[in-house]
């Protein structure tokens, strides 16, 4: 079974990629590729999220580097997708596989539980095997503990953590005078709990008059039908909903809220793309809001527009959902070029306090003390007005309503990092 990890769902992409590599061999024939493993769900309930991330990483590697002669004097970047089915056990197994294949960089993000397992396993592995170290680039797992209590020298996060996002989300909620009663619902694991706790605390600080009328956790990926939960939301008299749900749990929850005719704003972390926007369509207009790092619309940066168009040309049915994946790759490559090697310790050290410019022309800073990146945060709304780059080819997309500059999102570091000596 373990050999079958590159799933048929990616077959087309894999073939395209293969052809591309064949075409490239003239360029970087004799040089060994720099291999990067992406350990994320490629099958199961959360496959869509993992697949999109893989395609974006692959595309960014080709677009920025492989099509321009590779990195480190001509080495191509090779992306290897390893399927963890969003499970902790599979994540650890795939990490062992990546290590045994000599891969030095692991990218992952879908779910704080697998990410946390990965971070701990890598910390342990690197301590025991100093000549076989691995670097972990986390582009989406947002549990604050990953750069806080459980921080690791080998872990770098390119997504704002859930506290930073909640700070911005509650800022948007506090600015809406129509909201008085908020219902919080989330998946029952570390991230869902963190969202609920920070929402409660931050709303109390910003708008003490807002009442939390419900705080519900449901099992992740297990709920068939959210209607019973929605009945409770309706009964609570809530006039806004906050959720950290993602993947199938996000779309099913929003679907049930809309089917119940409950017309309240839904503040989410992940309520768009991968079929979610198309499924919600008109019903989600002006209702679904998202707090995220990635500016969706309006775009002013030529580089970002060109990147989106080129991605769409290759994958007409996919969207650029996470430009920060390209930022993560850029930071990695910058650090590799700086040190002239792929050795994880050297690269990690070079990445500390590194600043790179992302495709929107913004400077992204990787804080050295806890390895948390800082980028602008946006609150966007689902709409079909003023959308140049839509989601799911539905005509609907996200429009940024509120932008908080990176420097205002900085929270003090709480990380007590144990640094390897060499």
């Amino acid at each position: 079974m373990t050999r079958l990890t590159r799933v048929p769902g990616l077959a087309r992409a894999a073939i395209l990629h293969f052809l591309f590599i064949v075409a490239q061999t003239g360029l970087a024939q004799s040089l060994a590729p720099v291999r990067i493993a992406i350990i994320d769900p490629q099958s199961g309930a959360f496959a869509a999220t993992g697949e999109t991330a893989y395609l974006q990483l692959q595309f960014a590697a080709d677009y920025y580097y492989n099509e321009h002669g590779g990195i480190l004097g001509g080495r191509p970047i090779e992306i290897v997708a390893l399927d963890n089915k969003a499970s902790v056990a599979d994540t650890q197994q795939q990490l062992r596989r990546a290590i045994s294949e000599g891969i030095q960089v692991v990218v992952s993000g879908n779910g704080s539980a697998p990410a946390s397992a990965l971070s701990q396993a890598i910390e342990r592995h690197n301590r025991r095997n100093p000549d076989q170290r691995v670097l972990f680039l986390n582009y989406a797992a947002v549990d604050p503990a990953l750069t806080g209590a459980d921080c690791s020298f080998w872990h770098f996060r390119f997504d704002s953590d859930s506290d930073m996002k909640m700070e911005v989300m509650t800022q948007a909620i506090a600015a809406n005078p129509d909201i008085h009663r908020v219902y919080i619902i989330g998946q029952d694991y570390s991230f869902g709990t963190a969202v609920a706790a920070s929402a409660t605390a931050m709303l109390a600080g910003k708008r003490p008059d807002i009442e939390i009328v419900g705080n519900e956790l449901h099992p992740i990926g297990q709920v068939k039908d959210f209607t019973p939960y929605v009945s409770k939301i309706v009964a609570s008299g809530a006039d806004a909903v906050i959720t950290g749900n993602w993947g199938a749990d996000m779309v099913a929850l929003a679907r049930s809220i809309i089917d119940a005719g409950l017309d309240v704003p839904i503040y989410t972390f992940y309520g768009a793309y991968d079929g979610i926007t198309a499924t919600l369509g008109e019903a989600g207009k002006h209702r679904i809001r998202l707090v995220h790092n990635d500016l969706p619309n309006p775009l002013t940066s030529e580089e970002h527009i060109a990147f989106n168009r080129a991605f769409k040309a290759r994958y007409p049915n996919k969207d650029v959902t996470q430009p920060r994946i390209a930022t993560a790759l850029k930071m990695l490559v910058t650090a590799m070029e700086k040190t002239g090697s792929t050795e994880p310790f050297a690269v990690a050290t070079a990445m500390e306090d590194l600043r790179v410019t992302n495709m929107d022309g913004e400077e992204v800073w990787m804080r050295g003390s806890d390895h948390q990146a800082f980028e602008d945060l946006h609150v966007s709304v689902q709409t079909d007005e003023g959308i140049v780059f839509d989601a799911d080819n539905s005509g609907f997309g996200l429009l940024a309503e509120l932008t908080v500059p990176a420097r205002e999102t900085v929270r003090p570091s709480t990380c007590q990092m144990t640094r390897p000596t060499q």
Partner: protein
Amino acid sequence: MIDVLIFATLNGLVTGLLLFLLASGLTLIFSMMGVLNFAHASFYMLGAYCAFSIGQYTGFWPALILAPVLVGGFGALVERYGLRHVHKSGHVAELVFTFGLAFLIEQAVQSFWGADTKNYQPPALLDFPLFTLFGQDFPAYKAFMLLVSIGIFIGLYWGLTRTRTGMIIQAATSHPQTVANLGHNLPLIHTLVFGAGSALAALAGVLAGPVLTTFPGMAATLGSIVFVIVVIGGLGSLTGALVASLLIGLLQSWAIAVDVGMADLLHWVGVEFPPDHPLKDIWRLSLPQLAPVLPYLLLVLMLIFHPSGLFGKREG
């Protein structure tokens, strides 16, 4: 509170009857062929995806008929050219065969349709709230789901007990050799029953797709619960499947609606824990959190105390 309970009941009925559509096919196949079909929920998923694709050309209504027919035909082929050959090697081989089939179908669906959620919507004709109670809409489409499910139950019951084909099928479950000796084509009956069971699962998928969303994980989230229903209802019993489906549907719905926790229960019997007690995670468990495991709890209890299920006949 009462508003939540009323909606929980309505919703429990919708879910329960949907589960019945799935369980009825499964129990029919089991009572006839002795095969627990692990791929049953995959046919449900195929139904939803086929209806989504067909619906893009024909609209919802033709797809409602065409998708189950198509998937039923596929199910019949699976029986005729797959399961029938495996049958010679015994039940374990059949079980493993259907198990493998489930994985194959899931991967095939994902590579053909993609991993993202499909934009599968209820038909415009039914896209309105039937009534609004305590500020919550009850979609007309859900009422339609209820009606179709009840119709299927009545149709199945009538078909199995009142028609000639139904009698032969019933006879074939209890006395296969006699039926074969009377000149009936037993293998053909098996193919038909398997096809019909798959078509019922597909119909459930067509109905559920727009409400429960259509994505590659939809089979996995429903698959295990269907087995629970079949076991609780009694393997091979149609009435049992109906009662157990409604029971599970309502139980899950109610459990989410009622905000009672361990703490309340302990408080009621006069026991209090300090908030920093080492067992605080257990003490803090609430009924809504337990809702998804309740069916499995019921399954375990049923197997311990009444292994033949609610309406099952003990195998002689």
